[in-house]
């Protein structure tokens, strides 16, 4: 983080991977993750999003092709993987398959302890990570007494405590109530402002359009397209074709432009709230 590096932070080049039961993982998958970006991976279930994450963290090894991190191919030796995993954090979809210890504080300390940090540093990082996800009050409760959303926050804290440069989140919004989704979004914004690259797999196209500056479309184990977040209105036919849906605000904005309510020269808003602001009378504010 000290050097101003350029080029993608992570990349896959023609990666092939099949699981031992011969099910498809990745097929000639090529993509690049921009440093400092907020990238969303879109794609139907079984498109290979989780497999892609497991490759970026060095847990799965490509059968053909190469995975790169910070401009260099991954070193799958023990020290190489150690180095990689201390810089790439992965939050799994199901918290019950990530939480190792039954104590919240212990589980968050698991990653930093594995990094070999001293006790004082680990304590500080655990406290900071718990504060970031708003779980300080729950730190001494057992994991099995937490709600699903709280468990998910503990998972995120466990990875944040390792202070990764690249944060991979596998469907972090799934199963969270709207309030928690909002909090998570704010947390991700804070992390992004600190310079963290965030890559998220999600099915939420409205969130994607509002939040992402890079969007990758994965289907059948392949990266089929990569767009700027702001470019989604121009590719709505493709979005529809791949079954990931079109952001509602794009559809609504288009209708309003067609009816002449909004001039076509105004750039398309990225969120429902931005559209409301556009439609609000100049002196007043939009109603909720």
């Amino acid at each position, binding site marked *: 983080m000290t050097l101003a590096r350029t080029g993608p932070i992570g990349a896959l080049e023609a990666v092939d991977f099949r699981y031992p039961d011969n099910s498809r993982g990745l097929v000639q998958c090529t993509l690049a993750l921009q440093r400092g970006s907020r990238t969303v991976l879109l794609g139907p279930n079984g498109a290979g999003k989780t497999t892609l994450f497991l490759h970026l963290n060095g847990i799965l090894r490509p059968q053909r092709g190469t995975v790169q991190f910070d401009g260099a191919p991954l070193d799958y030796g*023990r020290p190489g993987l150690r180095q990689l995993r201390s810089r790439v954090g992965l939050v799994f979809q199901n918290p*019950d398959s*990530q939480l*190792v210890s*039954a104590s919240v504080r212990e589980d968050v300390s*698991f990653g*930093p302890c*594995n990094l070999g940090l001293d006790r004082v540093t680990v304590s500080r990082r655990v406290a900071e990570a718990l504060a970031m996800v708003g779980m300080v009050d729950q730190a001494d409760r057992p*994991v099995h007494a937490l709600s699903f959303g709280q468990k998910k926050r503990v998972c995120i804290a466990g990875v944040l405590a390792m202070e990764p440069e690249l944060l991979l989140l596998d469907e972090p919004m799934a199963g969270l109530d709207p309030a928690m989704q909002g909090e998570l979004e704010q947390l991700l914004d804070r992390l992004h402002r600190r310079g963290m690259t965030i890559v998220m797999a999600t099915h939420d196209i409205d969130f994607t359009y509002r939040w992402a500056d890079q969007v990758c479309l994965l289907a059948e184990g392949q990266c089929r397209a990569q767009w700027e977040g702001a470019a989604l209105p121009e590719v709505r036919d493709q979005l529809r074709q791949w079954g990931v849906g079109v952001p509602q605000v794009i559809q609504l904005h288009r209708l309003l432009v067609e009816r002449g309510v909004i001039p076509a020269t105004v750039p398309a808003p990225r969120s429902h709230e931005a559209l409301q602001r556009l439609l609000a009378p100049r002196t007043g504010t939009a109603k909720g």
Partner: protein
Amino acid sequence: MLIEQSAYSNRWRQVSPAAKGLFALCGMVAVFIAKTPGIACGIALLLCLTTLVGAGVPSVRYLRVAAPALLFLAMSGATLAASLQSGPVSGMTVQLVPAGLARAAQVCGRSLGGLTALLFLALTTPLTDLIALLRRLKMPEALLDIMVLCYRMLFVFAESAHAIRVAQTARLGYGSISRSFRSLGALVAAITLQVWQRSLALHQAALARNNDGPFRFLEPSFPAAGRQLAVACSAGAGLIALAVVLP
């Protein structure tokens, strides 16, 4: 689950597990060196009162947790005290013999003491704290890792077994005896598969967080541990002294 609730919500939750462990150990030693069953029972009563009054564990919960063990103890005590004898005149008779009674009293006194000492520890200390204590006592890491995972997974699988059972019940899976057997079999099969899948997922998750050997965690800190150990030590010594001094 009763033990769990109590371990996390009692008044002595933040007391050093080393102090609580030491006191429980002293209790057990005192019970074993007590000269008469009466003294052993007295020490058991003290341990029980410490748990109820000191740690503030509700007495109803305490009794519910102790009930299965007490029942088992009563049955064993009865079989020890009574002996089956066959005579030419009376045939098979159950007799209470003095030697048997004395042995039963001794075993019951000691068991009761052991039970109350262990309950004191279990009802006041969460297992994660106990595992951390065992780690400090240099227990082999492989055993500790198994304990950590078993304890965590116990709740994961209990939750999942419960969910499967509810889903089966909702579809009349337990409507008749034969169907109940079939459903139970399916439940066991599903859980077995989950154990395998989850072990793989957990392994990957541990790898992703840079684990490449034994599990390492931040040890919980108990700032007043020194003072608490001293108190536990003197209280424990008191129990042992009682057992030694009383005739």
